[in-house]
């Protein structure tokens, strides 16, 4: 008992934040598992997402400065970022709608794969399937932010294999032009795989983050399976980018818990480390939440998502003539 009290006093993050992280991680996991089950029961054509990355993606969203326009953070995400989107406060029903490609899909009106978010009111630019192009657009939003003044930053995320594209090197270069450095948090989530190709057979660099060193930028490789370390490291890196108006290259080692996508089966990969399990053990040890409470969180989210999905699958598909909508924006930008 004395031991427990001592640890409680030294919680690494405020208790309510630890609970919030847990809640969002569970919600993000439950969302991905619901999306996978929708796919497997024929309510979606393709699944790709971020189960196994919640310990990193959730803190990232919590630390973002939420809003629209250059005074707020921009997110140029890839397709494994649901945890970040939920942490920004987004209702998960949108992701279900995108999976079912309903007309009500708030991110693409039934046009795009699941996990391809677009939320203008939160500066989430459209996620594209094209690997690494987001690293080319990030300097543009960051330049606007630097010009605008204030402390808003641009965040760009992508996987390890994609860093082989020249676009990654472009990002390192465009954010470090002498005298023109840009406030970009450049994230690589390293799950050690590019579909079926092991990173170790491609990348000679010891850490992918080392590539930033040639450009004189601050870099770090962290354990993205630990939400507490991720939160702290992200907070530090983001504070640096906010204040110094310079880039930071952060590599997070993460897991790929259900394989690459539905194309590889979307089945649980037992050998991968599960960040949620590790975190729950910690929360129990800290005495922040007990097993029963955590089980209740899981049941609550799983049931809410199952119920939402039952409604979503009845929603109408986009009409055929909607293909003509939004080819162009109206004059005022819409």
């Amino acid at each position: 008992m004395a031991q427990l009290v001592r640890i409680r006093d030294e919680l690494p993050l405020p208790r309510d934040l630890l609970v919030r992280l847990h809640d969002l991680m569970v919600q993000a996991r439950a969302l991905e598992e619901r999306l996978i089950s929708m796919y497997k029961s024929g309510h979606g054509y393709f699944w790709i997402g971020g189960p196994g990355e919640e310990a990193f993606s959730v803190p990232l969203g919590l630390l973002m400065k939420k809003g629209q326009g250059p005074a707020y953070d921009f997110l140029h995400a890839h397709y494994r970022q649901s945890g970040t989107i939920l942490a920004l406060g987004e209702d998960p029903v949108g992701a279900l709608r995108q999976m079912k490609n309903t007309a009500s899909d708030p991110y693409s009106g039934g046009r795009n794969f699941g996990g391809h978010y677009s939320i203008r009111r939160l500066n989430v630019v459209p996620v594209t399937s094209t690997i690494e192009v987001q690293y080319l657009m990030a300097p543009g939003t960051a330049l606007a932010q630097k010009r605008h003044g204030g402390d808003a930053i641009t965040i760009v995320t992508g996987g390890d294999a994609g860093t082989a594209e020249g676009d990654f090197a472009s990002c390192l270069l465009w954010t470090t032009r002498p005298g023109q450095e840009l406030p970009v948090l450049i994230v690589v989530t390293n799950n050690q795989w590019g579909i079926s190709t092991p990173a170790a057979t491609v990348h000679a660099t010891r850490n992918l983050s080392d590539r930033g060193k040639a450009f004189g930028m601050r870099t770090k490789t962290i354990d993205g399976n630990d939400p507490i370390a991720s939160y702290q490291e992200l907070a530090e890196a983001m504070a640096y980018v906010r204040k110094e108006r310079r880039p930071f290259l952060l590599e997070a080692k993460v897991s790929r818990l259900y394989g690459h996508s539905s194309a590889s089966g979307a089945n649980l990969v037992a050998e991968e480390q599960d960040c949620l399990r590790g975190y729950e053990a910690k929360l129990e040890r800290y005495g922040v939440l007990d097993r029963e409470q955590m089980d209740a969180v899981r049941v609550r989210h799983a049931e809410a998502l199952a119920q939402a999905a039952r409604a979503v699958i009845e929603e109408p598909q986009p009409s055929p003539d909607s293909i003509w909508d939004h080819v162009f924006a109206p004059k005022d930008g819409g």
Partner: protein
Amino acid sequence: MAQAIRMALHYAEEHLGVTDIFGEDVGPPLGGVFTVTQGLSTAWNTPLDERGIVGMAMGLAFAGQRPVAEIQFCDYAFNTMDLLKLAGQMCWMCNGDWNLPMVLKTPVGAGIRGSIYHSHSFDAVATHLPGWRVVMPSTPLDAYGLMISACQEANPVMFLEPKALLRVRGDEPIPGEPADPRALSKMIDAPLGDRSGWRPQWPALSAYAVPIGKGKVVRPGGQLTVVSYGRMLPLCAKAADDVAAEGVDAEVIDLRTLAPYDWDLVKASIEKTGRALFVNEDTEVTNFGEHLVRRAVDELFYRLLAPPRLLAGKAVPGVGLADNLERASVPQPPEIAAAMRELAALAP
């Protein structure tokens, strides 16, 4: 034409909210390899990275800026293809959530003995990218007016500069332009040598705009419709004048915008003449003019007096450097005149 575009960009950065004009060697001291961006206050030099340039434009547009990006020659835009496709897709892909108000300008076409990598055309590629407005002027005044419109668009606009016309002086002045070309040059052309202290003296310019999507009849006629744009347009107009002496009465249309193109204008003219010749210098297989031929056949078949015809560049991998090679690769005035004569002579 280079000066006209420069003046439009100056007007746009002063009055239309253009925030950034950038590309390789676009900023001082050079002001662009064709001097189009000399003296502009928001012009800056980028790294030599075309993908980075297009990505920067998209990022700036996302964040509410109004960028005008340049690819130094369209020949070097091919490695940006997926980004151009994405820029055109962006508004549609997110169901109207975002839009990209950005201009991408790039010199195109042959005519300056630019050899294999400074002579490509881009019209077929550009018109294969739905979501883009694509414009291509043939006169300085249209270049000015189209750039003014491009800088007010809510969507990506590709501004194709016929590079062989960039040094051409127009018949119609830009509103505000001094009558004496030497006076204008003194005001806005950067001096040779040290330019560090130089500032341009801009004439009083106006928002003269050429609407995107509107073509123009540059020579009325009743026997034959000739549709062209960019560098080929003045050649077509001249050929039409030449064959007029032989009694061939050609109507020449400058399309000016390739997407969305002015089909109403083209259609009305073909309905009147019953004969259509489409002329451009891009390679002829899967050519934009082929689309216009197809549409003419689909919609106007029973009004036609002769098969619509396309005169375009040869489908070879590049435009060779030697005079003979370039001439053999892209339409030349005698061929254009010959095509007009032949078509005018055909009847059912």
